[in-house]
């Protein structure tokens, strides 16, 4: 169970991050459109307590790095993938409660005005201010409740554009409603605990409620409460909830561009509209502005590492450690350390490259600390022969977001393909391990630097 007792909430998580040195408070007044720049320059996540013109503080940069993400989760840095996999393997159904802190204040009808929230303008080429940390909740008569992460662009005091461009469960729910020319009731929670945010970001199979996975990550049921104006359940301890409906306008409203998860400015898109019928929030709420791309990437990083460990296990390979690297947006680039038997370096490369998003892989032996880039580079340098140990696979499934696949050349509905590569940086077969014996300073164990420096 996470520190903080039953149903640790967003602000308890923030308190831990602050104690760990991963969150700092900013007392000086700041305009909303300057917050993202400050987050990018700050050495820790920040809580802007004096946002000019607002009485709601803004927090950002929470999951910017592996250490910050680990602090938010209350897990050790090296166990993110394993702990995530364990949570997914034992889902726990949410518990319905009658009242929730997220409904301490309820604003409905003509009083609904999205500008009460300090929705920040984030990137130079964004189309407007964005809610980047929204977790959307919806129901489907057949498939049941669903949660997912969707960005929302400010349009008017009651309407936002929502990005439903790519395939998702919410898109499927919306399409079903659109086919009947009916709106789809939706609630968007802002400021949920990382367990709920990470579960919502996870690509769970349709019909599996992501909040059951959140329960698995928590080790206890998540408390959920019914919306005030929509028949949708939301996390009871969320900071802010927007209730409303996706209008049956289809993919017609301009939305974007927005700085996307791969670190590049995205395209202008045409998307549905979200009309807000109620704003509910805690007393003294905190607005969470998720910072792209790293926070978005780290929400997926543990799931990617879990998937890598799983597929290596299916290939019969003993995994020592798996790391989804930041440079690869915590999904596209993987470094794995294995306890190798003959041939398994390349088996591991092939297995990892079969995962849809993974595009480049380095596999090392388990004596390499894969969290140290210098050690990984050392292994590549001295354990790899380029003509034998680099594997290139062509014509594999690609992603539109990757400009190197030239997505603009594709026809309507055509999917991109990509080439991928992997480096087998394990000790080559036939070379005895002693050839790689590391130098060890004499009497290393007995010498303490602090005794001399």
């Amino acid at each position, binding site marked *: 169970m996470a520190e903080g007792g039953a149903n640790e909430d967003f602000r308890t998580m923030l308190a831990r991050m602050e104690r760990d040195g991963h969150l700092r408070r900013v007392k000086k007044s700041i305009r909303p459109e300057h917050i993202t720049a400050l987050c990018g320059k700050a050495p820790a996540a920040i809580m802007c307590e004096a946002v*000019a013109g607002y009485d709601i503080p803004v927090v950002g940069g929470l999951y910017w790095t592996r250490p910050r993400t680990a602090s938010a989760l209350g897990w050790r840095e090296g166990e993110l993938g394993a702990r995530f996999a364990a949570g997914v393997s034992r889902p726990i159904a949410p518990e319905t409660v009658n009242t929730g802190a997220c409904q301490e204040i309820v604003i409905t009808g003509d009083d609904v005005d999205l500008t009460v929230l300090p929705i920040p303008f984030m990137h130079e080429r964004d189309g407007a201010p964005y809610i980047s940390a929204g977790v959307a909740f919806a129901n489907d008569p057949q498939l049941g409740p669903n949660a997912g992460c969707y960005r929302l662009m400010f349009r008017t005091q009651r309407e936002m554009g929502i990005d439903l461009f790519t395939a998702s469960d919410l898109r499927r729910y919306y399409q079903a409603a659109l086919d009947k020319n009916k709106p789809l009731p939706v609630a968007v929670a802002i400021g949920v605990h990382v367990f709920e945010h990470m579960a919502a970001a996870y690509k769970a199979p349709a019909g599996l409620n992501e909040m059951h996975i959140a329960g698995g990550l928590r080790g206890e049921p998540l408390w959920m409460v019914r919306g005030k104006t929509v028949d949708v359940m939301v996390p009871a301890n969320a900071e802010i909830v927007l209730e409303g409906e996706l209008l049956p306008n289809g993919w017609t409203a*301009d939305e974007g561009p927005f700085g996307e998860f791969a670190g590049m400015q995205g395209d202008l898109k045409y998307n549905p509209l979200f009309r807000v019928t109620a704003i509910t929030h805690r007393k003294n709420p905190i607005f969470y502005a998720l910072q792209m791309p790293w926070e978005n990437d780290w929400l997926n990083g543990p799931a990617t590492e879990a998937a890598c460990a799983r597929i290596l296990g299916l290939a019969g390979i003993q995994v020592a450690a798996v790391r989804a690297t930041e440079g690869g947006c915590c999904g596209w680039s993987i470094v794995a350390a294995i306890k190798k038997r003959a041939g398994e370096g390349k088996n591991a490369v092939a297995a990892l490259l079969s995962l849809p998003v993974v595009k480049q892989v380095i596999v090392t032996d388990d004596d390499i600390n894969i969290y140290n880039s210098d050690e990984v580079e050392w292994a590549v340098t001295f354990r790899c022969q380029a003509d034998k140990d680099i594997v290139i696979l062509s014509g594999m499934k690609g992603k539109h977001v990757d400009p190197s696949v030239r997505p603009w050349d594709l026809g309507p509905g055509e999917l991109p393909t990509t080439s991928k590569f992997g480096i087998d940086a394990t000790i080559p077969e036939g070379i005895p391990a002693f050839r790689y014996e590391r130098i060890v300073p004499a009497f290393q164990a007995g010498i303490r630097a602090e005794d001399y420096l």
Partner: protein
Amino acid sequence: MPEADARLVTEILGLLRQPVFFRDVLLAARDQPYRAILHAWSEIRSHHALARDELGRYWLEKQ
């Protein structure tokens, strides 16, 4: 619900006679409270048709 500042709406409408990024709107109105800019933007999006180009710039569509 608070009403938009008519002068600010007019100022932004003037800016939208040519293609501009949203950033340009914020920059032009930087002496105004952020929330007032969003109110004005809400007013404009509710009552005026805005064209977009592939870069994401806005301008007033000819009526």
